[in-house]
């Protein structure tokens, strides 16, 4: 039992029904708060939304890869811009030359701060930017895969203490309910109807990181358009069986996170 019968059931349909070619349109919706499932991170999300309104304090957000740091930071920068604040999203993975010039921005969302560990020039550039923003009473949000303790081993003391002065938030992994919520929010944003049982199935059968789940959703979205078939559990089984492994993550959705 399991996946094999589902594949067999789908095969005749795939042969007899001509595939509908989906339009060459990708899902390009910019990350925003409506597609982020807060789950146990509701307080962090609310704090960052507050920062996007120009209310401090500056924050340091840490959590393992796949917990949505990039999504949150891009959402904050976008929301702040919409509220009239001069804001920017700045991933430190771009390197030290990408850091100067943001001193006059009212809010800078700085991603991938773990890149400063073992990179003194980048750490110094970040330190300068933080000082310049603080001097102007502007704000920043810094995200890192490493917590303060982990970063401390690789960065200079003065940068560490400045990070420690931020409001520190740990992003927790999503629970099953949170993952289901995340999937349904993403599906809803794509105009895709995803029944709770289907969302449950995906959560149970796929790796538990939001990036993989969302990438799978993108694949299913395309497959369902091609096959002109609703996304059902048998359809998912068949689709998964055709994949040669776990689908790659969508850079569009997950960025550097």
């Amino acid at each position, binding site marked *: 039992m399991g996946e094999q019968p589902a594949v067999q059931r789908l095969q005749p349909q795939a042969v007899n029904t001509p595939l509908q070619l989906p339009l060459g349109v990708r899902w*390009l919706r910019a990350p925003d708060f409506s597609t982020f499932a807060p789950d146990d991170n509701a307080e962090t999300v609310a*704090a960052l939304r507050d920062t996007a309104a120009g209310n401090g304090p500056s924050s340091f957000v840490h959590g393992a890869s796949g917990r949505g740091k990039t999504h949150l930071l891009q959402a904050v920068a976008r929301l702040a811009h919409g509220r009239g604040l001069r804001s920017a999203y700045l991933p430190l993975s771009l390197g030290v030359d*990408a850091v100067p010039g943001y001193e006059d921005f009212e809010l800078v969302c700085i991603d991938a701060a773990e890149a400063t560990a073992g990179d003194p020039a980048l750490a*110094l550039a970040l330190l300068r930017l933080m000082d310049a923003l603080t001097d102007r009473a502007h704000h920043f949000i810094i995200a890192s895969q490493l917590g303060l303790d982990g970063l401390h081993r690789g960065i200079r003391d003065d940068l560490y203490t400045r990070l420690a002065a931020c409001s520190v938030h740990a992003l927790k992994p999503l629970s099953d309910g949170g993952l289901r919520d995340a999937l349904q929010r993403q599906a809803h944003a794509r105009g895709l109807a995803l029944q709770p049982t289907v969302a449950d199935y995906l959560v149970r059968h796929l790796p538990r990181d939001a990036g993989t789940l969302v990438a799978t959703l993108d694949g299913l979205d395309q497959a369902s358009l091609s096959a002109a078939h609703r996304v059902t559990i048998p359809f998912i089984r068949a689709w998964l069986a055709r994949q040669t492994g776990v689908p790659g993550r969508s850079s569009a959705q997950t960025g550097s996170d």
Partner: protein
Amino acid sequence: MDDIWEPCLKRLENELDTGEVGTWIRPLRMLRNGAHITLLAPNRVVVERVRDGYMNAVRRQLSLLAGYDVSVDITIGNAAAPAGSSADTSGNDGTPFDSYLKGRLNPTYTFTSFVEGKSNSQARAASELVSANPGTSYNPLLIYGESGLGKTHLMHSIGNAILARQPDARIVYVGAEQWFNQMVSAIRYARQTEFKNFYRSVDTLLIDDIHFLAGKEHSQEEFFHTFNVLIDGHKQIVLTCDRYPRELNQLDDRLKSRFTWGLSVPIEPPDLETRVAILLNKAEVLGVHLPREVAMLVAQRIRTNVRELEGALHRLNASSKLTGQQITEEFARFCLRDMLATYDRQISIDSIKKCVAEHYKLRIADLSSKRRTRSVARPRQIAMALAKELTQHSYPEIGEAFNKDHTTVLHACRKVQELREADVQINEEYETLQRNLIS
């Protein structure tokens, strides 16, 4: 900002890869001159990426929105100060050095907002004296101590206080690394004379983090001459360093000597009372009601530096605002549980035993032995007192760790307190051990 820029951003969000607009396009500013549009980017990386990847899309959308073909170019700059006058104080291009005067002083860093305690009173008193009589009292004034203890705050306070008395004073605050970068740029752009003349013409020079000059021989040479000119001209120099300069490796002996010509004052990590006062003061500034017992709870657990206290307060304030709950001890324990757990993990009775045994050249086992000679009993008492102060263990738990009962621990804590008050050397030993354990 021109009214076609925002619609352009919206259209590009539907056309380009998600997130790319936020990273590369949204930070741009637009200047429009008829059919010619200049985009201002924060730095070279953004210029190159936009030019290589997005220029056609941007030009197309802007032309559509304008209703006619526009030409678009991109350069570094911002709308307030285009092309090359970014806030970076690297002294490149044609930025006049005079633009570094006064403007970099943070007006919120004043003596009034500085919380004084035993650990920083000497540094504060010296700073106030210097600001009242610049160039005459202590020259140079050197403030040294670890990061996050208030050196920069005092330095800005000196600058602000002098400026309040003498609004025309030429005051420069600069980090040693920025000074170094400015010097390198000055050499690169053949502006050495301008650089020298500028720094040798100021009334007060505030240089932060001079430890960054270590190993930079040419900078040290240049700074040596600037230093001499200013001191000879009775201009005030204030320096900060992360340690006593004589402990700095790769720093010219002549500079080490000159840095300590005037007055060198340390800033130590704040004691408990000062930490509580700092928290209450910062809470007042933020308009947060922070009960004294919560300040005490946080200050007891977070001992290393002021910025971490600030971080804890920010977190409490954010959580309280978001949940609508008042800040109580229980709320603080829950809200800061991760942070406090980290601090608790850092110091254990075992790590205290190890540190004390190393300091007094004993075996760790000696501290738990029955030996009662003073050479063992005194370190044991100090270890017990440290365990009580730096961990959350109870008297009985500490006693058990040392094979003693809780009354022995109680006695040890009282005894150490008496000794610290009566004997400066023991007090210093205790504080050294405490610092080593905390850092």
